[in-house]
């Protein structure tokens, strides 16, 4: 068949999108990485937590955000509002919260010299104030970071003045996600992979399901694709800079013996992928998926994966041009008994090992990307969401400083 005559499915909806090969330079250039740091990670809304991580007034959480070169202190005030600050004392720079999470007593006392800040970031006590030479507490509170909440996800924006509100930024995704019962699930597992890879390679590896039958032949393929049928996405959308991916569940799902047993006790993950949207919807309250799962990429570095009975997120943290930390967090209903706990472990471990296959691939790609052997890469129609992501990266990097 003449290549020019092959039916093109998804990209026909986007005639403006180019079909040319893409350069390898952005994956290996330290200069480009620094531009991404300034033009993307200090300009967009970045997810750092869930509201359920700081459920009550005085609860706090600290996130090291290396791409922004800062430590972010997230705290719920007594007015129930969640705020974010740079975790840095105005005196001589010591982070005022040393623990990853905790409950403060309405204030943070710097453990260096005892300055005190309340949960609204106000400097309420300057130790040895009379020996300073004019420290105005009002000018020396914790430096705030723009912070807002969407569907229970806490986002921050490091820009001095964000170019759009969080609601506006997320608008292309909100309709698709609204109604998903996030509140039914609580944080159950979290894997943290410190990989030698450029963050974009990692993001892109998840922005298409075409690799499922090949890379994940031994793991997820049987639950999320139809073995023997040519792969095509059930949905592939560009939602502004964000993306959406879904795959057809298998026509026939034969769970392995242990998965079959676990299915009698609770919902895991492979079985959640494999369940048709018309099938048993434990915990999903009638929310309709577009396929085996609904996977949203929120530009730049967040994924939200919705399934029947569980959901997961990826936070993809760039550290250097060739180093990225991948956090994978899974949410299940709180296990009420050993059987449910077992089923959830079947789910999390099967998922874990699938993603370990991805991690292996990421690092192998990175090991040769700087060789100069290839100046360009090729993308097919089913990889449209990757091209959309690259376009968004380039658009932000090329944008004039605001």
């Amino acid at each position, binding site marked *: 068949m003449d290549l020019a005559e092959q039916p093109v499915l998804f990209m026909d909806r986007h005639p403006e999108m180019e079909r040319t090969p893409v350069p390898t330079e952005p994956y290996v250039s330290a200069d480009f990485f620094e531009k991404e740091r300034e033009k993307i990670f200090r300009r967009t809304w970045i997810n750092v937590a869930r509201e359920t991580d700081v459920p009550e007034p005085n609860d706090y959480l600290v996130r090291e955000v290396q791409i922004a070169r800062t430590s972010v202190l997230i705290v719920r005030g007594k007015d129930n509002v969640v705020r974010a600050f740079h975790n840095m004392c105005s005196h001589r720079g010591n982070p005022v919260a040393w623990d990853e*999470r905790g409950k403060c007593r309405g204030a943070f006392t710097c453990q260096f010299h005892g300055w005190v800040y309340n949960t609204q970031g106000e400097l309420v006590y300057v130790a040895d104030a009379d020996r300073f030479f004019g420290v105005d507490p009002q000018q020396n509170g914790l430096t705030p970071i723009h912070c807002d909440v969407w569907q229970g996800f806490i986002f921050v924006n490091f820009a001095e003045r964000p170019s759009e509100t969080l609601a506006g930024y997320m608008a292309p995704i909100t309709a698709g996600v609204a109604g998903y019962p996030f509140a039914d699930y609580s944080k159950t597992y*979290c894997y943290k992979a410190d990989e030698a890879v450029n963050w974009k390679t990692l993001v892109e590896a998840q922005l298409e399901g075409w690799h499922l039958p090949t890379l994940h032949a031994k*793991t997820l393929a049987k639950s999320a694709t139809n073995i023997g049928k040519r792969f095509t996405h059930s949905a592939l959308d560009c939602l502004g800079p964000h993306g959406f991916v879904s795959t057809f569940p298998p026509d026939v799902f034969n769970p392995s013996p*242990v998965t079959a047993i676990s299915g009698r006790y609770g919902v895991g993950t492979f079985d959640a992928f494999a369940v048709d949207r018309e099938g048993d919807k434990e915990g999903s309250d009638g929310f309709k998926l577009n396929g085996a799962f609904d996977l949203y990429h929120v530009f730049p570095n967040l994924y939200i994966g919705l399934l029947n009975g569980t959901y997961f997120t990826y936070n993809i943290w760039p550290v250097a041009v060739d180093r990225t930390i991948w956090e994978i967090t899974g949410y299940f209903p709180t296990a009420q008994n050993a059987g449910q706990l077992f089923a959830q472990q079947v789910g999390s*471990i099967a998922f874990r090992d699938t993603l370990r296959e991805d991690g292996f691939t990421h690092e192998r790609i990175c090991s040769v990307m700087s060789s100069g052997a290839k100046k360009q890469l090729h993308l097919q129609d089913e990889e449209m969401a990757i091209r959309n992501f690259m376009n968004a990266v380039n658009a932000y990097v090329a944008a004039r400083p605001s």
Partner: protein
Amino acid sequence: MTQYSGRSFPSRFAALEPYKDFARETELDRAETINARPFSEIVVFYDAMLPLLPEALDYLNTFDVKALPREEANLLRLCLAMVEASMAVELFEDTDPKYLMPIRRFFPEHDRWAGDAAKAGARAAA
């Protein structure tokens, strides 16, 4: 005062005593233990455990999962080790698959959560 029986598991699961070494407390430990064993050894464990798995889960379901006595806690850990064994036997046919990131570099943060919660509880109570 509870007598220490010398058994790892409840008496009706005495047949699983040879596999007590797999009943580790953390996911990392269970995964690395399975990774380090020859495949044939894990097949033996898998084959012994599979027919007892539903009975073990039904039995454990009669307890409060947050307050399991010692033998029952060990039995649950053995069931969780069976999950690791099932990956090796059912999916990879290998206890240390070649093309995966090592588990230690794909770190299960949740192993720390119970310990952190216990410490936070102790601090709050102090």
